[in-house]
């Protein structure tokens, strides 16, 4: 079970990113729990400067813009 956090105040890209994470996870049949973090203080404390950001199991793997779909799969599979 992987714990994924998607950081973003709630713009369209953030929702799209969340969906991408879910899609990639189901494609790889990896069990994930996706949490959306919309609180500015938490976003900033995670070190995310440009949203959306993605952290997998507490490790920040991406920030700023939509992630690359192929890259997302490797992060999840790692």
């Amino acid at each position: 079970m992987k714990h994924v956090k998607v950081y973003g105040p709630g713009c369209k890209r953030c929702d799209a990113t969340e969906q991408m994470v879910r899609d990639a996870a189901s494609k790889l049949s990896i069990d994930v729990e996706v949490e959306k973090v919309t609180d500015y203080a938490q976003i900033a404390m995670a070190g995310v400067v440009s949203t959306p950001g993605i952290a997998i199991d507490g490790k920040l793997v991406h920030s700023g813009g939509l992630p690359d779909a192929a890259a997302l799969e490797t992060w999840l599979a790692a």
Partner: protein
Amino acid sequence: MTTHTNTLPGRVHGPSGWLWSLGVAAFVAVWWLVYRQLIPVSEWLTGLFPVDRHSHTGEALAFFFYDVPKVLMLLTLIVFAMGVIRSFFSPEKTRALLAGKREGAGNAMAAGLGVLTPFCSCSAIPLFIGFVSAGVPLGVTFSFLIAAPMVNEVALGLLFGLVGWKVAVTYLGFGLGVAIVAGWVIGRLRLEGWLQGWVRDIHAGGVGDVPSANLTMVDRYKQGIEAVRDIVAKVWIWIIVGIGAGALIHGYVPADLMARIMGADAWWSVPAAVLMGIPMYTNAAGVIPIVEALLGKGAALGTVLAFMMSVIALSLPEMIILRKVLTLKLIAVFIGVVGTGILAVGYLFNLIF
């Protein structure tokens, strides 16, 4: 610090770099050929309508048919180029460059980077906090935050396409000037205490920086295309509406009406333009075609530019977002300082041109 990587081990590479470069070059060539045909095509289209070419309606139609494709084409090219350039910058890198910078030089650097760093107003708050908590001085952060939305590729592209390169370059110069000076002044005022309490308490602990992957040139071209899809898809409707409004002004508003209302002689016109701009929230795409039409009717350039800067840089919705991190006092200072800068630009322009 842990290292992360964006690159895949067995990443599939599509067509090679030079093939892409060739494709881009071919696209630009075709673009240029089409661009040069725009006037005849627009005249031909206007001719299809049963109106006198020299009537008000004829003028408005010709204006519309020429300007819509012209602006969309210019915008596509400029947004693509900026998308490629921006792939070399990231907010994280910019923050690292600006952290601990002295005021003055730091403000100038921040304003310049504000133009080049990818920025979206929805991430203005995390970016603001990220900058301040990483030791970027408050005034320097403001220089960045003023320049980033005000001097953007859409505004520059439209000004270039509709009003001419001289005005576009001047807008770039004065936009940067306002961002540098306003940020410097805010820094001098030492207002760190006026941030919302929780912002001051954040010390972004492990500065999580995601090292940007080693992008190939192909990746950068792809980011350019992505930017075009993203931005042009968002603004095309505003451009058509804006040019439509501009076409009506162009065809129907009597010449020199604007000269009386927004001309250089009316001293109050610049402050009035700035005040009018604050509650208005259209993006550059909607406002610039109108600006162009007003100029054609004798409005003074400085007044019109002040209006534009005010609409883009001092927008009410943005203030409401900023309220989450700034106290009202600090927002008031922000509006005051930036507004004064824009006023100065307006008067200066009217004086020079």
